[in-house]
């Protein structure tokens, strides 16, 4: 089993949106996948995955032996493949209930159950919760907005991955790092208001896994509790689908990164 952390340092950049889409994408490609909410006290992944009413137990219950992992895992209903499970975070407990040995136990149980991937949705910040989410990671998706504080925080979280992850501490092969730009607006880039994805990549110097455009459909998806990747025909769904394919080793060109000026007629009609 591979453990993948979706992390960023900065809050609100799209980690949960990405975790939901990415885990769903892996499941749609046939992999048995668990997506785990590490945001103890502020769980939200259940809402984005649309399974909030089916939450009975959470990761802390499993760690404290108050429930079996199989009781806490919620089967996702959006993927026809029926191989995606959500492990919610606790809404009430104190953050320190998420212990390193507890997380290790949960991950090893998932491995025994035959999961191919565990996707860890990290909380914001560089404190305990974020460190727990990345400790056992084999790969990391550094979710970044094209904006100064997000880029800086991404670099700081890279530093933490390189010093506090299990792989860093025991000197094995380092965590594989991927850059994912989200909320990218080609129009604002064109106008010189927003940093280009190329610049972000040159600044952080890690391989680019994808660019997800800023899009109104993300709100449409979260309103309904449907991971964005299921919104057929939307740019965001296609960008996430491409990102999953690249993660699995396919070489695909970037899409949705260039701005096409609306033509005269479109402007006349007031199109976007």
């Amino acid at each position, binding site marked *: 089993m591979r453990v993948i952390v979706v992390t960023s340092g900065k809050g609100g950049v799209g980690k949960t949106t990405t975790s939901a889409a990415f885990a769903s994408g892996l499941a749609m490609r046939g992999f048995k996948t668990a997506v785990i909410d590490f945001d103890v006290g502020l769980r939200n992944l259940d809402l984005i995955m649309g399974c909030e009413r089916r939450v009975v137990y959470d990761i802390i219950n499993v760690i404290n032996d108050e429930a079996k992992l199989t009781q806490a895992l919620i089967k996702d209903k959006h993927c026809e493949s029926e191989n995606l499970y959500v492990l919610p975070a606790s809404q009430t407990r104190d953050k320190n209930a998420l212990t390193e040995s507890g997380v290790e136990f949960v991950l090893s149980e998932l491995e025994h159950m035959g999961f191919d991937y565990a996707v860890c949705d990290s909380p914001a910040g560089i404190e305990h919760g974020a460190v727990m989410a990345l400790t056992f990671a084999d790969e990391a998706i550094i979710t970044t907005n094209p904006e100064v504080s997000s*880029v*800086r925080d991404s670099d700081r979280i890279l*530093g933490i991955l390189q010093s506090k992850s299990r792989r860093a501490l025991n000197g094995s092969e380092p965590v594989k790092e991927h850059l994912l730009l989200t909320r990218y607006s080609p129009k604002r880039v064109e106008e*010189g208001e*927003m*940093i280009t994805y190329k610049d972000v990549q040159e*600044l952080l110097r890690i391989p680019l896994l994808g660019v997800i455009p800023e899009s109104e459909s993300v709100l449409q998806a979260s309103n309904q509790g449907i991971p964005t990747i299921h919104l057929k025909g939307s740019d965001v769904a296609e960008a996430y689908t491409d990102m999953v394919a690249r993660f699995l080793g396919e070489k695909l060109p970037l899409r949705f990164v260039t701005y096409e000026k609306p033509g005269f007629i479109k402007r006349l009609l007031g199109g976007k």
Partner: protein
Amino acid sequence: MGTLLSRLFGEKKLFGEKKRTSEIAVQRLGILIAHERNNRTTRPDYMPELQRELLTVIAKYIEIDLDKIDIQLEKQGDCDVLKVDIILPEGQDAGQ
């Protein structure tokens, strides 16, 4: 005059063209990230102490601001170089 103009046009230049601020962002980030990475990878534990002590010695002779000193360990080819940057206040000529 300048402030009046900028108040009138905000961030926009004349003829409504917006300032291309993204280049400034990239430049600032380039400096910041290089600096922070350098501190992360090469900064030994004694560096803050060394910086404080250097500062007290220099302050005995020259009036300097606490934040006008910057020390870095850098790799230059095969050797490590300890780089100390001290910005002297204006009017404090060298050799004075």
